[in-house]
């Protein structure tokens, strides 16, 4: 088990006369045995960062440490970081068995021991019956499992996974998530997983680093990131969110913010000052909606614009004031409020997150 430390890693590509900062001054620490996720939109630099850790890309600046060893200049094959590639990269001229035996072979294990190690890892991914097949004779899900077995069989201290589920259909992806996490945790290796799928990150990770434009925006546990996003980008990227800008009117135990939709209060601490511009963020599923009654002074006044049936949920589009539109998600099964209905939206003080404007 290895602690991985990235110190001010930067990677610059020269393209058509301009410099592109694929990774921009990233510092990060992944604890030993942790299942760490790099999450972000396409082109944010997460795969580049992963490949820097693997040694497949040389950083323009910065250092990389495994425990107390500086491995920045260490060749790929000596880093002991087994990688699962996005397209699996299973060698088409080798059988499943030979693919999985490769890592142990490079470690110098005798043939019998190699076969044993390979079979044991193939058994763990339920692929032991396919040892004699070639990769092109396997389905996508089977190839993914063999690729994982190959990486695990190398028994490295560090496991790197580059969007390993992205080529699977939605149903298989869901099925593989739990299994993948279980296998990685069982191996005990420190693992870094790259994905653009926020549901994957939220459901599998110990900790997540959200990246954007080559930089780390926020690092934290999934729940922290979802409930307490540090920026509008993180809030918007992880699930759906409603935003409204306002000005801090009161600070103290409660922070009150005057917005175009009305007064919003939050009991979450923050470095706010009276008169400061902030953005209020509320998740759609944290809002209660009820038909507006006479003398209803609490909550925000809104009008139902439309509703969308999502199977287990119902999502309302609500207009607040003249221009503001918010989404509200409720469990389906309740009576549907028709468009045009005047409603009151209410939320707990704990569910209003304040973000820098």
């Amino acid at each position, binding site marked *: 088990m290895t602690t991985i430390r990235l110190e001010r890693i930067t990677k610059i590509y020269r393209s058509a006369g301009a410099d592109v900062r694929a990774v921009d001054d990233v510092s990060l620490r992944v604890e030993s045995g942790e299942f760490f996720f790099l999450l972000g939109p396409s082109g944010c630099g997460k795969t580049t960062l992963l490949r820097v850790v693997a*040694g*497949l890309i040389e950083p323009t600046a910065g250092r990389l440490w495994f425990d107390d060893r500086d491995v920045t200049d260490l060749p*790929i*094959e000596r880093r002991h970081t087994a*990688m699962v*590639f996005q397209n699996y990269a299973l060698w088409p*001229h080798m059988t499943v068995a030979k693919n999985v035996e490769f*890592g142990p072979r490079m470690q110098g294990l005798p043939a019998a021991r190699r076969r044993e190690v390979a079979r044991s890892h193939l058994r763990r991914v339920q692929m032991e019956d396919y040892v004699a097949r070639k990769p*092109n004779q396997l389905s996508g899900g089977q190839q993914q499992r063999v690729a994982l077995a*190959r990486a695990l069989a190398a028994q490295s201290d560090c496991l790197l996974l580059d969007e390993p589920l992205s080529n699977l259909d939605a149903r298989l992806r869901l099925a593989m998530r739990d299994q993948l996490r279980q296998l990685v945790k069982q191996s005990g290796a420190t693992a870094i997983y790259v994905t653009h799928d926020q549901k994957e990150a939220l459901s599998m990770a110990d900790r997540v680093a959200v990246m954007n434009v080559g930089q780390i925006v926020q690092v934290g546990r999934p729940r922290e990131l979802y409930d307490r996003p540090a920026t509008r980008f993180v809030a918007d990227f992880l699930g759906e969110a409603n935003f409204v800008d306002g000005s801090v009117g009161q600070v103290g135990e409660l922070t009150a913010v005057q917005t175009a939709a009305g007064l919003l209060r939050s009991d979450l601490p923050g470095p706010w000052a009276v008169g400061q511009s902030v953005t209020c963020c509320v998740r759609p599923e944290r809002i209660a909606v009820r038909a507006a009654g006479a003398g209803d002074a609490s909550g925000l006044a809104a009008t139902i614009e439309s509703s969308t049936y999502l199977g287990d949920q119902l999502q309302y589009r609500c207009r607040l004031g003249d221009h503001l539109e918010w989404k509200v998600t409720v469990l389906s099964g309740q009576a549907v409020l028709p468009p045009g209905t005047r409603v009151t939206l209410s939320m707990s003080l704990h569910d209003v997150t304040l973000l820098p404007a």
Partner: protein
Amino acid sequence: MTQPPTTLAGLRRAALRQSIRPVPLALNGLLLALLAVMLVLPVALVIGKGFSLAGRPSLYWLGRVLSNRVLMHQVLNSVVLACLTTLACLCVSLPLALLRSRTSFRGLGVLSVLLLVPMILPPFVGALSMRKLFSQFGVVNLLLERLGVLDFSASPPPDYLGAGFAGVVALQVLHLFPILYLNASAALANVDPAYAQAARNLGAGPVRTFFGITLPLMRPGLFAGGTIVFIWSLTDVGTPLIVGYEHLTPVTIFKELARAELEGRTFSLVFLMLGGAVSLYVLGKFVFGRGLPTEAAKASVASQVRRLGPLGTLGAWVLFGGVIFLALLPHLGVVLLAVSNQWVNTVLPAGYTLEHLKFIITRQTTYHSITNSLAYAGASTALDLLIGGVAAWLIVRTRVAGRLLLDAAAMLPLAVPGLILAAGYVALTAAGPLAPYGPTRNPIPLLIVAYAVRRLPFVVRGVSAGLQQVSPSLEDAARTLGSGPVGSVLRITLPLIAANILAAGVLTFAFAVLEVSDSLILAQTRPVYPITKMIYELATSTGAPETTNQAAALGVYGMAFLAATMGLAGALLGKRLGAIFRA
């Protein structure tokens, strides 16, 4: 409007109707019949004559060949030559292809283009200067003596050519390595870099990764190029003739075919060559050359290109430049021979003259050899474009029954060397209705057909590639707007693939001008000599000493012409040029 079929039986009926539409079916039949007459029949005659005695099937001639120690030694010699040439080509081309694909350095673009130049310079012509350059008292040893490396008085200088075997191998390697280089480069480009990265990631060093992962995945491309190189080398007759090394089967076949009386033994020998070439082609294409099914049609990760530093760049320049220089050396020698007045025991000619170049275009026989070549090549190219263009359209655009057979037949000339085909035409015209077109009478139609058949695969491949890049929906759009089927092809498709057709035509024409095997064997009377036969006659003449210079001068005209047409083809096809030279 008829409804589309919805049942399996309905789909089958629809497919059957597609496959038996009258016009494509008739065209397909016609082309197959033409290929049967122009290609299959001559080859069948070769086999027939080699396996018959007094009108009856017999293994007599084959037995005569197999029991003849001299002939068998020549066969072995030919195979060894081809193996050495192929292996040497691989050793030269693989490092160059690796450097080209995996590194970048100043001048790489220019060097990559220059590397292909030897492909257009026929070794048959380069052979003219081999003795002048590499014999015991040739230019190379004279230069080394001037530089103080050798001392003629102390010991006799080395004869690099030996009995000529080394010279033939060297010339063939220097001409053919670009084919393997192109195939190796394409093969490397087709191997997803992720495979090598995965191996490195799991602990394999760069050398182990190359031999264990990359090289096996390059196998189809290497075999495709290697097959062409091997077959070419095995059946090359021009180079050994000019170098003067005659202990090879193609040379024996050439000499025996030139005799008035043809023996079945000759055709048995031809059959052995044919059997070897076809077996290798089949093995190369369908066994060793079969592509491994890979998951991704394109690379999943970007290829990591390493920028070389000053020392690395110097090393790369030395490697590229050295190979290019060696490859061009024989042809530089030919140019010097063509313009030299006096060149004996000196590094460079003592005097220069344009008389030899003038002689070629002022003397009737040599001038006519140039016009003959241009005429034959022009006619054969027209035939190729017609047959090859229609074949490509049938193969790519239609579902006509028998199109796969047409595809295979059109590619068959790749497996049948020119020597074999020429022998077949000799057999075809030995007697019967085609006798007036024999080599000693009027072989012009035969020469045109032989040139056309040899180059047909290049045209089919070139035009097919163009058609595959043009979506059929473009023709369909024209049809929905009132254009008929022929009009749609002429107005829409043809302009879009004009560059492919032109490039294929230019290439075909260029190689036909300097065609060797067919020309040497089929053109037996001087009025019909093409360039290559005239070069052979001048080079092997025992008359005036300047005949070698005249042969070189004629070679210079040929090379200049070939260079111009290849340049045009390269400009039209660009990077796709390499795809032409695959089995």
